[in-house]
């Protein structure tokens, strides 16, 4: 990819890793389990480390500057707002279903569904953060 800074390359790698790992978790697996959640976390960490290592090895100029930090903050802001919005939405849906009597807390899978829902929120926020940073780089800020 021409004219990409070190930080931009790492962001594209992060986004690719997030889409591959989270995508396979959320779209290929129908049954949730603690093992699959743990597997997803391990997979994303390992993949990120491998990709970052490769990019660091092939990139000679690894300078980061104030613009990189500004874009990073912008990404975190977008991610924070996303997770806050999803939390409010999730709590509102929970309240709505509780009021309607649709939630059976006796069911042992309810906990896993909650875990999966909270992970989905974090995943969406993470992808939003990375995508916002990439867009900021492409728009020069």
């Amino acid at each position, binding site marked *: 990819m021409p004219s990409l800074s070190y930080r931009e390359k790492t962001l594209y790698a992060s986004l690719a890793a997030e889409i591959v790992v989270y995508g396979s978790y959320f779209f290929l697996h129908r049954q949730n389990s603690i093992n699959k959640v743990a597997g997803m976390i391990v997979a994303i960490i390992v993949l990120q480390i491998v990709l970052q290592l490769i990019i660091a090895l092939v990139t000679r100029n690894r300078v980061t500057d104030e*613009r990189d930090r500004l874009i990073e903050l912008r990404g975190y802001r977008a991610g924070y707002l996303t997770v806050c919005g999803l939390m409010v939405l999730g709590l509102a849906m929970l309240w709505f279903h509780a009021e309607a009597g649709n939630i059976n807390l006796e069911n042992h899978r309810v906990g896993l569904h909650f875990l999966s829902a909270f992970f989905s929120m974090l995943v969406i926020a993470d992808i939003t953060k990375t995508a916002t940073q990439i867009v900021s780089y492409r728009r020069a800020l």
Partner: protein
Amino acid sequence: MAGIRNRIRELRAQREMTQQDLADRVGVTRQTVIAMEQDKYSPSLETAFKVALALGVTLEQCFQYEPRVGRG
């Protein structure tokens, strides 16, 4: 975009300096130099001083502020 304009490209060309040369002297990435030259990014005061110093001019010769018209 912001009302801060600059003459980085012009001054750099006069000195036959590449974007990478200027970036190395200032301590920023080449992409940041490109963004500054296109007036898409207004640097911090410290970086603006470093750019002016690297180009051998004063801050005012390198950066100009043009107040926006028609906005409160």
